[in-house]
């Protein structure tokens, strides 16, 4: 089970607290069991339905008004000279 929980943390980029690990592991297994119900059906000749609207729409490529830089950055916690400061991207 700890393998499963490790995989889940890695896939979702969520660090679980110690006390959450067992709970989530148990719940996930129980929910997957509940999902397995759909394996009872023979679905080999059914087309999947991804989205209720069959096609999106296009618009002319013209500039529209949008947020100012100040507005767009108004919820950023760490910024410098109008840029967002992100975590380091090299090294491990």
């Amino acid at each position, binding site marked *: 089970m700890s393998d499963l929980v490790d*995989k*889940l*943390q890695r*896939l*979702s*980029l*969520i*660090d*679980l*607290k110690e006390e*959450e690990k067992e*709970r*989530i592991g148990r*719940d*996930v297994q*129980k*929910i*997957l069991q*509940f*999902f*397995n*119900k*759909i*394996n*009872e*059906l023979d*679905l080999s000749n*059914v*087309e*999947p*339905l*991804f*989205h*209720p*609207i069959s096609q*999106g*729409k296009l*618009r002319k490529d013209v500039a529209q008004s949008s*947020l100012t830089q100040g*507005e*767009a950055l*108004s*919820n*950023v*916690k*760490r910024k410098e000279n109008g840029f*967002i*400061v*992100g*975590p*380091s*991207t*090299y*090294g*491990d």
Partner: protein
Amino acid sequence: MISQVVKDLKEGRLDPEEYVERYYDRISKFEKKINSFITLRSKEEVISDVKESIKRGGRLAGVLIGIKDAISTKGIRTTCASKMLEDYVPPFDATVVEKLKREGAVILGKTNMDEFAMGSTTETSYFGPTRNPWDLERTPGGSSGGSGAALAAGFVDLALGTDTGGSIRAPAAFTATFGLKPSYGTVSRYGLVAYANSLEQIGPMSKNAEDLGLLYSIIAGDDPRDATTIPYEVKEVPSEISVNGLKVGVLKDILEASEEPVKGIINRIIDKLSSEGAVVEETKLGYAEYALPAYYIIAMSEASSNLARYDGVRYGYSKYGDGNWKETFSKNRGDGFGLEVKRRIMLGSFILSAGYYDQYYVKALKVRRLIKNSLDQLFAKFDVLVSPTMPILPPKLGEMVDDPVKMYAMDVNTVIANLAAIPALSMPAGFYNNLPVGLQLMGRYLSDTFLVGISMFVEKLTKIYDATAPLQ
């Protein structure tokens, strides 16, 4: 009726200050018990907005409205009931909020909900659970439970909710109010904090059928900023439609799976419809037991992708920032999300990962196709399908939230409409030991105003509208 309030405010029969005071009075007396708002605006600000709005005019000039906290409001904090967005203030309005403001509506506050709309009881909120005004021991349903509770408590007469798998209809059913999950694509989702794009819609909530239709007619319509909206407009406010001669299908498989008291109340309504001349026939949805797992597989998959944006860098909870990007994101997300949200993101990521995608996700989409086909066949024969909105009475707090599979099972009747994109309306059907029971009407794609019209007729039979819980 809101149309009367608008008239009275405009023509001076209702003093704007008195009007606003009336709601704040009740809120100051009872909100501590209910917890229906995450953010409440100051009374002075609201009074001044109401006065201004009456001068400008509009179909909702001066009318107060509660907005679910998943919908962006410029300058008013929008938290999605999450620690992740505790201090997030949107720099723009959602399209529906723009439309409401254009017609003169005034936002009273942002209503409580399950965190990121993930829940059916409004108990997963970071800001504490909302309680049902009809019985404070019980939940108001969810995830738009704050909106439902605020209506039933008499804090406001109009509200917006969002519905991904029943999140408008569950609270409507449990609080004796009205709610519509609109046809997919008829209401813009621009500015809605996304949970599961292919399933969710913003929709109106109210205390009677007329107000429901009015609110829907204002928020509906094509939006260039949301590519999933369709060319659509509600030109006239819906009017009453008699059930005489209407072909009504009763979804027997769903009805039979409901609790006895719920079944009893819904059966009485069906008898009434019949004696009013409706042609009532029992039928079956088919695949009902597969709809629920298919729905949750799709919803969690879409959620895992949508919620990837919360990393604490551009907005939201951001305690950590010194490590590399992977550590930073993982820590911020681990701290910022609550347990149910983590469960759903993790399951969604798992389902979409190599080796499981075909086994779960694609199969769920195939079940979705089967359900849509089954409904297409039913609507070739019936004008409207009726069932209970919820299979159970409002549960007590704590009864459901600790067992995810049990909580998911509450949504068995409502997820169908989201999978198939059709409109579904919940309205009060009756009370059992003072606990509300809701009737669900489902119709053909784009028959939203038709459903509202029927509910205007049915509310006269039930005589349950403008119901306010007797709080003390």
